[in-house]
């Protein structure tokens, strides 16, 4: 008796029959019936009508039958939530069964039933099973907590908090890393993958830590499971960035990486393909790893075509003077293969070799000529396209081949090849006797050609005319009229007109323009853009590495997707990609016009009452800050040593100064300035009118108190019912503001009651540039609904306490920032003298560094630093008796100037 009969076609009264069988007294018959039900379920038939009958079979001590029933339950409980409740009792009972298999089974199944009502009952048994004596049950229960988190995050975090009070499990610090590394040696291959992937998210503090982690991960490279190997490679590739290149260990590591990567290629084609896609990335980042392993990328005749193409790509990336002869011999073989796509790519590869390795160019060209002799249509066309590129790299070197090319003019039928050929004819018109005839022959079918060919033909004929003006006047007029009068294509028309006017006004100038020397094409084509490559290296072994796209490009509603970056190298710092000077350290994404409500909602549903779990891990934003500091530090260093002869050790001291430096600063000023008055806090404004939020009214403001940014809110309940369960979440914003804790509204807000809430903020949240810069989008949740509003914060609250610059540094930095980054503002109607203004500004962490009086004008030089490390330098001019101040701001990120000025205005006028 076999199970296959269950799949046989069914009769009309099948459900009835099954019902009868399910209610049979005989165990065997019952089991057979449940199997039949499951078989129908698998093929997609609706057997939910049998729900009560199947659930009735649940009370059994036959484990096999029980498993089958549970399988059914998982599938249909969601569509029959009321009925599913019937099963709860059995679940609870099974969770206390003496047999650990049954306990685990019950917990596992309960977690898979995504019905709210069941979830309530789940917690108690789950709590018990987490403390079960049997490890298998405990493990199953632990996974069940994860399931619970998806259904009801609040309940799950309660459970976690019970066993781990006050600890953040997701925090990666050296202690946890150490534990993970120890566990790495003891767990199954699948566990190792999870651990390695987790390690890859950690950023070591320095190169020594990085090296010690690398040393402990390296043994994984010889694991039999290729997923383990690749995850280990990811960790190593990432941490290697931090190792100084002159270190011996660095070289050792490079050597160790090659063999496992090569071994990956002996797997089945599917795995080979995935491995090759990853190797392609690795080779672009660190070609030295595999430079001696060229041979393994030689194509086998029985490789599937997608593997062949990928190997070819890597071969070209690895080609160098040392191995070019070998590569070329291979490519020549490939070019006579059967598969058209592969042959084309091989021919193209020969051209790329010629461009990449100059010494081989001659040999490549002669190989290409051999291939053209075969007269195989697609080979000839492809060869002509690459020969055009070779001409562009080595002009005037291989014209001797032109004659051969011209012989094949007739066989060209692809636009790209035709365009390439026309380009060659135009470029070397003076060397080709019958160039005019050749081009004329193309002109006959001008309107049938593709745009690419038309444009090329136009240019080529103009070139020809400029080189041989006497014989080709007619031809050029013909093509110009074709292009300008008979064509609908604006590109073509415009180009035609430009040539026409050029030729008619000043033929000499035309010659200079059209026949100007062209820039040579670069050696490496189709490399992945460096920042994308860096990100992809961080995603080695994942889907992103197969698609060669960042996860944000293929994950919808990219919740939780962060842009990862490689850590900077310590010591030499040579591989750090320093951001362009002047660009603000904000992510380069376009600011969204509206709040992506779905996104926010997703985040909110994830919202936790424990403060730390929902805020994304800080590395991305802190990495950015590092970048900005680097940039500043670097710039200053070089300036100080170059221009001012100041001792280089002076460095910018404020980077290391403790944040609580308010008092020191005070003394620094010599006490002559007056008492600081504390940061300016603007009055509360209405953020969310009750009309828009079902009765909840929120007004609030931002302030900085004792070095902590706070959001101060008044929540007023203007509805008829009590409001509870408040929670808050921010959208990504320019400075990474995020709640540092949950919203503390402990008591329910009854109708017409107002409550004050103070929310401390930190700046380690995800960063996205907003418009205006200081815009903040907020979502507030209560028991009624989720509400969105946006507000603007005064940027002054982001000025940190250690924002006072050394005079020397200030001077150097001021000069270093280009003039176009300076913004001037007028501040009207300010009736303070310079000293009063200075002390007032000091309260908001805008520090006066020097004061000068020139011709009755007071000049204050001031500096401030934002939480993300951006420095803003200011010059404030005040004339005695004149209420109008002039503020000049210089900053490497000029975007912030407008906001900073608004803060000046706000502080000084209040």
């Amino acid at each position, binding site marked *: 008796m*076999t*199970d*296959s009969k*269950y*799949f046989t076609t069914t009769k009309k009264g099948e459900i009835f029959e099954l019902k009868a069988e399910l209610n049979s007294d005989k165990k065997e018959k019952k089991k057979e019936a449940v*199997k039949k039900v499951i*078989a129908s379920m*698998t*093929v*997609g038939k609706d057997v939910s009508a049998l729900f009560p009958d199947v659930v009735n079979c649940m009370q059994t001590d036959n484990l096999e039958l029980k*498993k089958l029933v549970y*399988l059914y339950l*998982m*599938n249909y409980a969601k569509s029959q939530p009321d009925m599913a409740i019937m099963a709860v009792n059995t679940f609870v009972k099974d969770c206390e069964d003496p047999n650990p298999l049954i306990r685990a089974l019950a917990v596992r199944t309960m*977690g*898979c039933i*995504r019905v709210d009502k069941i979830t309530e009952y789940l917690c108690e048994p789950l709590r018990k099973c987490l403390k079960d004596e049997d490890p298998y049950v405990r493990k199953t229960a632990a*996974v069940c907590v994860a399931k619970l988190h998806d259904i009801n995050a609040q309940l799950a975090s309660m459970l976690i908090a019970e066993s781990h009070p006050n600890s953040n499990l997701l925090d990666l610090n050296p202690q946890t890393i150490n534990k993970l590394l120890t566990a790495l040696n003891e767990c*199954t291959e*699948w566990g190792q*993958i999870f651990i390695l*992937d987790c390690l890859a998210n950690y950023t070591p503090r320095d190169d020594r830590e990085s090296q010690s982690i690398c040393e402990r991960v390296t043994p994984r490279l*010889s694991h*039999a*499971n*290729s*997923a383990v190997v*690749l*995850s280990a490679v990811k960790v190593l590739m990432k941490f290697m960035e931090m190792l100084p290149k002159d270190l011996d260990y660095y070289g050792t590591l490079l050597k160790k990486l090659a*063999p496992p990567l*090569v*071994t990956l290629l*002996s797997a*089945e084609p*599917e795995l080979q*393909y*995935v491995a090759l896609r990853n190797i392609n990335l690795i080779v672009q980042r660190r070609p030295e790893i595999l430079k001696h392993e060229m041979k*393994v990328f*030689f194509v*086998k*005749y*029985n490789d599937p*075509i*997608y593997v062949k*193409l990928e190997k070819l790509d890597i071969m070209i990336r690895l080609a160098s003077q040392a191995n070019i002869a070998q590569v070329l011999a291979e490519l020549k073989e490939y070019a*006579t293969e*059967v*598969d058209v796509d592969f042959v084309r790519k091989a021919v193209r590869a020969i051209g790329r070799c010629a461009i990449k390795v100059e010494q081989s160019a001659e040999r490549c060209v002669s190989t290409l000529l*051999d291939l053209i002799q*075969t*007269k195989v249509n697609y080979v000839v066309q492809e060869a002509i396209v690459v020969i055009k590129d070779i001409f562009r790299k080595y002009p005037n070197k291989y014209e001797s081949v032109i004659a051969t090319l011209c012989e094949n003019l007739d066989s060209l039928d692809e636009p790209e090849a035709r365009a390439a050929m026309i380009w060659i004819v135009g470029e070397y018109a003076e060397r080709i006797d019958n160039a005019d005839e050749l081009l004329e022959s193309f002109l006959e079918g001008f309107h049938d050609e593709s745009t690419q060919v038309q444009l090329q033909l136009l240019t080529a004929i103009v070139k020809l005319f400029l080189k041989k003006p006497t014989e080709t006047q007619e031809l050029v007029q013909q093509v110009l009229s074709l292009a300008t009068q008979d064509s609908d294509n604006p590109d073509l028309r415009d180009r035609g007109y430009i040539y026409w006017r050029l030729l008619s006004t000043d033929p000499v100038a035309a010659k200079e323009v059209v026949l100007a020397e062209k820039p040579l094409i670069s050696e490496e084509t189709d490399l992945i853009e460096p920042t994308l490559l860096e990100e992809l290296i961080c*995603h080695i*072994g*994942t889907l*992103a590495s*197969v*698609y060669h796209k960042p996860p944000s490009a*293929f*994950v919808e509603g990219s919740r939780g*997707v962060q842009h990862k970056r490689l850590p900077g190298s310590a010591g030499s710092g040579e591989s750090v990609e320093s951001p362009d000077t002047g660009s603000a350290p904000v992510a380069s994404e376009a600011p969204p016009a509206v709040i992506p409500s779905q996104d926010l909602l997703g985040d909110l549903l994830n919202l936790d009452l424990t403060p730390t779990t929902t805020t994304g891990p800080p590395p991305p934003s802190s990495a950015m800050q590092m970048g900005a500091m680097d940039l500043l530090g670097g710039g200053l260093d070089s300036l100080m040593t170059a221009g001012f002869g100041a001792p280089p050790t002076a460095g910018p001291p404020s980077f290391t100064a403790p944040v609580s430096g308010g008092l020191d600063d005070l003394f620094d000023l010599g006490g002559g300035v007056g008492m600081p008055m504390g940061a300016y806090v603007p009055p509360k404004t209405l953020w969310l009118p009750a009309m828009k939020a079902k009765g909840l009214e929120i007004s609030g403001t931002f302030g900085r108190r004792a070095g902590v940014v706070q959001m101060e809110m008044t929540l007023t309940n203007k509805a008829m019912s009590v409001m509870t369960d408040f929670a808050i979440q921010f959208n990504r914003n320019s400075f990474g503001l995020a709640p540092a804790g949950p919203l503390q509204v402990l008591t329910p807000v009854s109708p017409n009651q107002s409550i004050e809430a103070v929310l401390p903020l930190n700046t380690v949240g995800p960063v996205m540039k907003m418009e205006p810069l200081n815009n903040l989008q907020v979502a507030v949740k209560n028991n009624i609904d989720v509400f969105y509003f946006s507000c603007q914060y005064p940027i002054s609250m982001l000025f940190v306490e250690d924002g006072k610059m050394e005079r020397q540094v200030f001077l150097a930095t001021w000069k270093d920032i280009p003039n176009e980054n300076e913004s001037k503002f007028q501040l009207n109607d300010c009736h303070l003298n310079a000293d009063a203004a200075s002390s007032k500004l000091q309260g908001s962490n805008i520090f006066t560094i020097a004061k000068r009086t020139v011709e009755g004008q007071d000049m204050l030089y001031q500096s401030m630093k934002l939480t993300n490390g951006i420095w803003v330098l200011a010059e404030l001019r005040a004339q005695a008796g004149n209420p109008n101040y002039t503020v000049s701001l210089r900053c490497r990120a000029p975007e912030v100037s407008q906001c900073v000025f608004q803060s000046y205005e706000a502080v000084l006028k209040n």
Partner: protein
Amino acid sequence: MIAQVFILSSKGDRLVYKDFRGDIGSDAVGLFYDKVTALTGDQPPVVMTHRNVHFVHVWQGGLYLVATTIAADSSPFAIIDFLNRLAALIKDYCGALSEKTVQMNFALIYELLDEMLDYGYVQSTSCDVLKNFIQTEALSSRPFSLLDLANVGLFGADTQQSKVAPSSAATRPLQGGKSEIFVDVIERMSVVMSTSGVLMKAEVEGEVKVKCFLPSCSEIRIGLNEDLSVGGSHLAGYGAAVRVDECSFHPAVRLDDFEAHRILRISPGQGEQSVMQYRLADRLPLAPPFRLFPAIEKDAAGRLLMFFKLRCDLPPKSSAVNVSASIRVPNGCISLSQELSSPDQSAELQPQNRAVVWKVPRFPGGTQLSAVFKLDIPALSSASMMEVGPVCLTFELPKVTASGLHVRFLRLVPTQHRGPTQRWVRYVTHSDSYAIRI
């Protein structure tokens, strides 16, 4: 993490379908089948995506084993590996992986999946761990019978008289049966050779597999060649030493005696395991098994004449079986006439592949075969001569390892288990990609 796992027949019927996370609808099955059947040959089938659902699949035993995921950080390697393990486990439990066995044992497979994956995270794929949880008995499509032994050789080899292990062991479920253990050394050989016989590339990928049918598994010791050297080129002094460039081991292998005595110690679980994998490139201990001496010319009538001498350089006692040489010929061949040196050989023209396929069922070591092929090609030019070749060979070399790796001994550490235990050691070398350029 994995959101769903399903197994489809080649016609797209659902055989097994299990959802682990509930975030992808069951319409994914249909979507997958549409996508996979619409693939053209040059598109990589490995990872496919639709909206934000990613499909990873392997094709084994005429079935699609598919996993879906929506998480961008899932590792396709891990998923493919997992699916391969699933396939191996089904083979271990049910004897073979086919539409029929999966249909017969769907309840068992559901049970397996339930234990292997929880909430989309892989828990365990080890047969030993899993057998503690599995209740359902496997049903084998065909009971094991001694009759099967009668005339089937190992790896298709015609070796009736030689003493070989029963091939049906490969398609037998674990439960029940005799206590037997098989150690297979399987190698795949890739060679690229120029016309003059110069090796341009030579590579051997090998694997030591243990398939264990012992009811209670004790430790076994596998002794490899004592002169085996790993990695270092410093040892390859006089050429006698057996060398591998690198090797990796199953995590359960204890290597205490490996450095000194080249002994692998392992307590194999029931079922099949790959104990050791190794690779060797460039300097093979033996000459490559085949050499080709071609001569190609145009005759007066404009036909293409190809003379081939093919020599088998194996030791005289060994022989190659199922040798097939595929000779690439120019475009536009119309007909072929051939002269072969013995009647059991055959040759045919396959115009769609531009190839002449020459088959030799059995090729003893140290012998030489010759063949003449005459091809009618209307548009024969001098350039078409360039299109001749390469010649690609496929073959099997039973009882031969290209690397020279051998199992010195296979010892079972005595346990309570009584009764005779059959121990088998088998060697075979397959061609992976053996190409001779002309």
